[in-house]
């Protein structure tokens, strides 16, 4: 169990880095689905008590949402707006990768100082969750296209979910459902927003949103 958790966590970080360095939108969505699947498998392996039926239920729910439903919605949105590549990131892909590596270091430093309750199999969980949160933020900050921003937001959500795994021995149902519902609503709203941005401005670049601001 221990090795599997470590492997899954390392895979989550690796996939986040891959997302930072990738320019293909459909590729990004597939990676995101993979990451969702990894995150979904983690409840089965992370706790010292071993396998539990309730964890299986959560796991199935998360995998269905994060690995199947959300990626499908996003792929549909990408087909709708006919965009394939993120061509003009604010921070270049190489710099994003370097920054991502730096953020992983920062996350480990922070996690050292963060008091965490015991009962976890892996001591990698907190740093990985922090690193995922930060890389999600970095994606939202450094990308122009609305779809990549949604992907960044979902990575961010994955990080928060991982953190939730860390701080409670067994996630209470309500919190868990709340997280899933939150993500679901967010994707719906963003899907609609993307659709509308594309229809109004003939582009899904958020740069065009600045024409709504009070400055000319």
């Amino acid at each position, binding site marked *: 169990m221990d090795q599997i958790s470590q492997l899954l966590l390392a895979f989550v970080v690796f996939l986040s880095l891959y997302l930072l360095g990738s320019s293909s939108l459909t590729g990004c969505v597939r990676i995101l689905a993979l990451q969702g699947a990894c995150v979904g498998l983690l409840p089965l392996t992370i706790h010292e008590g071993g396998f539990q039926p309730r964890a299986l239920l959560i796991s199935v729910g998360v995998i269905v949402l994060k690995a199947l439903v959300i990626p499908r919605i996003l792929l549909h949105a990408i087909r709708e707006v006919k965009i394939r590549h993120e061509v003009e990131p*604010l921070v270049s892909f190489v710099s994003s990768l370097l920054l991502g590596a730096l953020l992983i270091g*920062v996350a480990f430093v*922070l996690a050292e*100082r*963060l008091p965490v309750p015991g009962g976890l199999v892996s001591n990698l969980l907190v740093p990985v969750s922090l690193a995922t949160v*930060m890389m999600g*933020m*970095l994606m*939202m*900050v*450094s*990308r*122009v296209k609305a779809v990549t921003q949604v992907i960044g937001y979902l990575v961010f959500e994955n990080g928060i979910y991982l953190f939730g795994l860390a701080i409670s021995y067994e996630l209470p149902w309500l919190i868990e459902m709340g997280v899933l519902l939150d993500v679901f609503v967010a994707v719906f709203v963003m899907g609609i927003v993307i659709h509308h941005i594309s229809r109004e401005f003939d582009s899904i670049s*958020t*740069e065009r*949103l*600045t024409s709504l*601001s*009070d*400055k000319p």
Partner: protein
Amino acid sequence: MLTVCVSALLAGAAASALLGRRPAAAAAASLSGLALGCAAGLAAALGFAGPSAVDAAWPLPMGRLALSLDGLSSLFLFAVLAVCLAAGVYGEGYLRRSPGLAGSRSVRPLFLTLTAALAVVVCAGNAILFLFAWEVMALASFFLIMAEDEHAATRRAGLLYMVCTHTATLALFLLFALLARSTGTLDFAGIRAALPSGGRLPSAALALGFIGFGMKAGLAPLHIWLQEAHPAAPSHVSAVLSGVVIKVGIYGFMRLVWMLGAVPESWAWAFILAGAVSGVGGVLFALAQHDLKRLLAYHSVENIGIIALGLGLGCLGLSHRRVDLAVVGFSGAALHTLNHALFKSLLFLGSGVFAQELGTRDIEAGGGLLKRMPWTSAFSLVAAAAISGVPPFNGFISEWLVYMAAASARAPGEVGFGAAAVGALALIGGLALACFTKAYGALCLGQPRTEAARGARDPGPAMLVPMGALAAACVLIGLWPGPAVALAGRAAAVVCGVSPEAAARALAAPAAGAALIGRLGAGVLALAALLALWRSRLVVGRAAAGPTWGCGFPLTGAGAQYTASSFAQPLARAFAPVLATQAHAAAPAGYWPRAASYATHTPDRVLDGMLLPAGAGASFSLTWVKARLHSRLQYYMLLVSLCLLSLLFWKL
């Protein structure tokens, strides 16, 4: 009696506001309210009316309508009401003669409201009532400063005053919240009784008081509003602002020291240092001004510096448990407060007359006014001599007390304080004398430099009588200082927490010296009067009055006279690194020079030299950031995440 005083003033304010459409009726209402209120308040302050305390419930939390009079409040109430009465009577004449203000309906009610608020501030026994009256005072004086708001300079001054006074109020809110947290009450007497001694509370309270009260009092480097607001206000309002509104800051300091009971030695140093900087800086910047009221405003900074020196010596006495030093220091500060209220308001009243007659506040436009406006000039001469600390006027008596306090700071560890205070006082006195010689000489002596100065005349008795009364008070305190020193001694006794008899014993030697100075001064004055009388008897019928400077220079006109700037130039050059005067000169050129000009401008070191550039820099960089931020959504997200990250790092 206090209730009568405050309600008469407020009733006068209401009546004059309601009668605003009919200036004559409004003037009558405001004058009668002012006279009745001030008479009642002065009777209470001087103890003719028996003990007069008010204590009533007030529905505000922790608030009580508590007014009481002890020695400290009496002294300040006396100064407030005496100056406001004189300035209010003068103000009626002044309003009638100023074209911009004659139709104003707001000045009279606001003036009475200001007077009532000042009276409540110095008598309040509860912090909520104190702060309430403090804010009424600040707002009333703001609207009075803005009376002539058609001028851009006035609006700027009003804004600056508003910012400063609210900064001060914020500090006071914090101060009283701090005191209330450690004592559980907002009554001054309760705070004094329940305050735990020692700890860091006294230092924190004094630091907040230094900002709050020091900003109001105009202690450098918090003086920035004085030199802008005093010239902008109508002259009788300037007199009240400079005479008593800034003194309320001194009252606040003294009340705070009374509440704390003990002062750390470091704060004695701080007061002496701030006093020396204010005093020397104030008089130096006064020396470089051409605007009469701006010059007087800088002299207010200087005199607040002298008062702060007295406060610092008093605090030194308290921290070293030396009652005699504390009593003499605080008496000097208290008496100088009273004296400055008298002569500075007189100077501002005089400056109002000069400015009305000349049509400008520029002292270079005057000249020869002593012959054309003998009464105003004579009264201003008394005030100028008093503020310069020349015996036998009242300014010297209070400076004498501060000198005595400095001289008695002889114990080990005190010599430095005393020497610093004496050195600063001596420098201030000499420079003040130079500055008033300059201002008075340029205005009143020599030949008229402008047409307006040639046609200037004294105003009517409505304006001359209040000025005469203030001048008489200055001379009276100078020649017969006993009662005033005793009044200041009672105030100092309250601040030091000793009995009035003990304070009188501690003050006996300086008071005796002051009385001797007064008698010597009276003797000198009597001798001079006798000689003058004798001379006038001897020369009767044989002396002819000629034109000024009519001594055989037929071709020199008024323009060839010494100007105020040229008089001050050697001193201004000596202190050039401090003053940083900017000269705008167009020198005469060629063999047949035509136009040439020379103008100097001395910006304030703190306001124009530091605060405005810092504010402009901050505004510029924030505008730059805002322009960048508006361009992209992502920058907002970046800022949010950076903020979160730094919070995370800070908290872990």
